[in-house]
């Protein structure tokens, strides 16, 4: 490839505005070279620079005594005691997964794993949050199948269990599926590594796969809306090689154990460009790269392509001077390519040389510190008010509540996701204590000691319908529900990573959704003491002008001091008392019931009392020793929650809901309404008095609603269904939708 001349159309092709280009001229004091233009264009893309979102993150709480590393590094870190830390992060691979579902999702997993082991941690558990259009569309079935197989193909091979997640289906994702992947690793506190290039003279080493032309401008693609030419973007999607990543993981962890590494960063989005400039930027140093030394995969590549390639499974390592041979030996042992390609400088420049000739020289720190920052205009959409209006009087009560419950259990958003998670190896590493399908996944931390082996609970969550109806309240709900899921496993919620998926931020309505969701998340995280320690923003989730519902996915992690003392959602014994914790109101706005049964997405999401929520979570962690099960009430309300507890435990129940709400509450709201802050739990009748006392102490409303036992789930006179029937509908619905066409 021959280097083109820098002109207006080339600048535009690189997605840079006139203002941004003027800033480049100011930083350099001259016209950029082609390579430099490429570097700025990727580093200043929305994906890398967060230029539209950064300004709003001031709203997030980011610190707590247990937070070791907040936002800004490759991943956030929390202290979990015993000298150990948990490192976790979530990232999106939405655009590539739409274009090429298997590889797009696979490389998403590869990228998030590298973010974790870059920090010195061994990845031990993955989650994912997937969103597609309705499954009666063959394209969506193909996308679902490809994405799940891609995640499985990568995660299973590398041997990191995928222990849970969520899958959600809605027409708004038909043209823009969401693939958000989460990973968590464990590291000794004194062995955390960072992406810094310090110590002038230290060698810079390139390790891993060769560099090809794949993925060039991948981040730019992720920063644009899709038009009709999405298919033509296939070459922008990278191809994953989990086996090489496994070698890279083991070799990096081995080298980290030997005190050879000064700093390390993976080459993810924007490849060599972002890793080198960010490492120098963080350390306040410079880096000089001799780009002809990078192992090429293809012939006749030019510096521009080397710098912008997003070939997978590559890392950049700064090693202590004199120790490079020792490091290279480790990579040879694992049959990996490792080459010294440059050194750390004290001049503050990212200098790129090609056979001795300088092709780029940019002040490294300025690439990020001078990156554009936009406070984009935001405006409440004109249609928002109409959306929030809901006249319950016009909605007829169901005549057959049994069929409503079965229809809800068959809704792909409520139905069992077994067919998805059975394709993931969710048990490798033998730590998975609570398997997929409960409120939160729980893993044990083998390395922890003390009175018992510790556990970590984790979940990903977001009700995008709530966020669409009211982004502020919806953002709060996403956090509150994630925390409630964690608490239902018996764990104490600790911290959050987020993945904010939105439409085009240049549209004021989308920006309004974003700003308000971020506010809601910040407020809930403050109230629940779960700081945001990292995350990712994915804008431009639009196709032909149609944006997705705002989807700020929350990944949350909590801790169990003794992993054996955990809770799951299924009823355990016949004759147990069944209780409902929390208040039930006449709230149907934004419910799955309203959407599935009445075809309406209207009203305000349920109200949310964050203080009550926090008290509920504290109560649950205290009540673990006496509870036999706990399950959050969310989509489908208390009826769906009871059904799921029955299905999981294969035990029926005799339930009466007449006392849980004010007299005269609509029956459908009582059964299927989604009032927040509620949990269905079961326990021995003999422990009821103890639970009552705990509830009084924590200020949590408690309602005794029935007893487990028998083969049917009976709720007042409205519902009576054999558990076997509930189970069949719940377990087979998704599979039937995918396979029977």
């Amino acid at each position, binding site marked *: 490839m021959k280097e083109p001349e820098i002109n207006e159309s080339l600048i535009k092709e690189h997605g840079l505005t006139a203002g941004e280009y003027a800033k480049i001229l100011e930083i350099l004091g001259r016209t950029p070279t082609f390579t430099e233009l490429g570097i700025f264009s990727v580093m200043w893309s929305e994906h890398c620079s967060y230029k539209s979102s950064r300004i709003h993150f001031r709203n997030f709480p980011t610190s707590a005594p247990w937070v070791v590393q907040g936002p800004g590094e490759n991943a956030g870190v929390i202290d979990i005691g015993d000298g150990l830390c948990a490192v976790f992060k979530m990232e999106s691979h939405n655009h590539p997964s739409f274009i090429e579902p298997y590889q797009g999702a696979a490389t998403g997993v590869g990228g998030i794993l590298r973010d974790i082991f870059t920090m010195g941690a061994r990845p031990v558990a993955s989650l994912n949050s997937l969103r597609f259009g309705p499954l009666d569309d063959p394209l969506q079935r193909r996308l679902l199948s490809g994405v799940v197989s891609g995640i*499985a193909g990568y995660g299973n091979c590398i041997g990191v269990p995928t222990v849970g997640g969520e899958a959600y289906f809605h027409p708004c994702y038909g043209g823009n599926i969401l693939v958000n992947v989460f990973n968590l690793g464990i590291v000794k506190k004194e062995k955390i590594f960072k992406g810094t290039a310090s110590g002038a003279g230290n060698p810079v080493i390139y390790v891993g796969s060769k560099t090809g032309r794949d993925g060039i401008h991948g981040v730019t693609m992720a920063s644009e809306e899709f038009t009709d030419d999405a298919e033509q973007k296939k070459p922008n999607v990278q191809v994953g090689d989990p086996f090489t990543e496994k070698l890279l993981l083991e070799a990096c962890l081995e080298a980290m154990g030997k005190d050879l590494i000064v700093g390390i960063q993976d080459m993810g989005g924007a490849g060599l460009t972002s890793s080198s400039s960010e490492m120098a930027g963080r350390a306040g140093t410079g880096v000089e790269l001799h780009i002809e030394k990078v192992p090429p995969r293809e012939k006749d590549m030019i510096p521009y392509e080397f710098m912008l390639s997003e070939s997978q499974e590559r890392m950049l390592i700064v090693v202590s001077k004199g120790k490079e041979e020792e490091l290279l030996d480790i990579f040879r042992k694992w049959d990996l390519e490792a080459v010294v390609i440059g050194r750390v400088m004290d001049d503050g420049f990212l200098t790129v040389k090609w056979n001795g000739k300088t092709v780029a020289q940019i002040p490294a720190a300025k690439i990020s510190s001078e990156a554009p920052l936009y406070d984009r205009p935001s405006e409440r959409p004109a249609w928002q008010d109409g959306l929030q209006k809901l006249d319950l009087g016009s909605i007829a009560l169901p005549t057959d509540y049994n069929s409503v419950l079965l229809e809800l259990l068959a809704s792909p958003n409520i139905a069992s996701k077994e067919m998805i998670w059975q394709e993931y190896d969710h048990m*490798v590493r033998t730590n998975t204590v609570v398997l997929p399908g409960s409120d939160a996944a729980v893993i044990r931390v083998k390395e922890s000691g003390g009175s018992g082996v510790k556990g970590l609970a984790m979940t990903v969550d977001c009700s995008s319908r709530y966020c669409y109806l009211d982004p502020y309240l919806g953002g709060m709900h996403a956090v509150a529900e994630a925390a409630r899921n964690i608490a239902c496993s018996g764990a104490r919620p600790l911290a959050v990573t987020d993945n904010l998926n939105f439409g085009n931020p240049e549209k004021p309505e989308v920006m309004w959704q974003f700003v308000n969701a971020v506010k809601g998340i910040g407020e809930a995280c403050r109230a629940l003491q779960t700081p945001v320690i990292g995350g990712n923003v994915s804008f431009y989730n639009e196709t032909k002008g149609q944006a997705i519902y705002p989807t700020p996915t929350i990944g949350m992690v909590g801790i169990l001091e003794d992993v054996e003392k955990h809770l799951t959602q299924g009823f355990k014994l016949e004759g147990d008392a069944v209780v409902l914790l929390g208040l039930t109101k006449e709230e149907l706005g934004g419910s799955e019931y309203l959407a599935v049964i009445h075809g309406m997405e209207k009203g305000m999401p349920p109200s949310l009392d964050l203080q009550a929520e926090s008290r509920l979570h504290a109560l649950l962690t205290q009540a673990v020793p006496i509870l036999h099960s706990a399950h959050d009430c969310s989509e489908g309300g208390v009826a769906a929650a009871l059904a799921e507890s029955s299905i999981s435990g294969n035990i029926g129940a005799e339930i009466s809901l007449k006392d849980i709400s004010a007299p005269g509450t609509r029956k459908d709201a009582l059964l299927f309404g989604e009032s927040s802050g509620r949990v269905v739990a079961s326990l021995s009748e003999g422990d009821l008095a103890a639970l009552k006392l705990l509830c009084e102490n924590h200020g949590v409303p408690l309602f005794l609603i029935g007893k487990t036992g028998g083969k049917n789930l009976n709720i007042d006179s409205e519902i009576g269904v054999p558990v076997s029937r509930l189970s069949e509908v719940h377990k087979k619905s998704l599979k039937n939708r995918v396979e029977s066409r």
Partner: protein
Amino acid sequence: MIGIVVFPGSNCDHDCYHVFKHVMGVPARFIWHKEDKIPEGTEAVVLPGGFSYGDYLRTGALARLSPVMGAVQRFAGAGGPVMGICNGFQILVEAGLLPGALLRNRGLKFICKDVHLEVSLEKPPGETPFTNALRKGQVLRLPIAHAEGNYFINPEGLSALKENGQIVFRYSTAEGRITPEANPNGSVENIAGIINRQGNVLGMMPHPERCAEAVLGNTDGKLLFESILSFLSGTKTV
């Protein structure tokens, strides 16, 4: 001493090590695939699950050519107990230490779930190092996690397996019935695990190391490890 072979893409190596070392409380060590000898004092060898070389060609096809496999062949030839789990089973088949082949699952997809296994062994239990804590007809619950676990063998091979009592585990219902519905991957006659003629090399698709601790909700797998240890305590080294 239990030796656990580590291929570059093994990923159940740590799990097997953990079971022997921390659950069963016996010494264990890793054997790197580039080694061409089984270390002195090794009493049993485990080939763990994983994706030894990425499984890009055919599962186990490349691992078979690793230097360590010559050593494993000699160790097994001398009567040493060798256990291959999942990818380990695939490698043993590729290496010719066990008959048959493992094909892509009938449903083409990777499957991770608990299955029931009927202990089918014909040999008196005490005769194999892996099954002396089990009895014929017993039903175990163990997880599988594989995309290529569909055991295939030709009719002559199958008769030989039966004649010699080499079929150790078959996929079954919870009650121990061998039905097509209980077969997760399409294996011939629901075969989940077999042993060689001499009775010292076992290959099985299910993962006993994933269910050997109460905290993981199931301890059925521990019976296999107890068998190995009680066998070894009778016959020290090979």
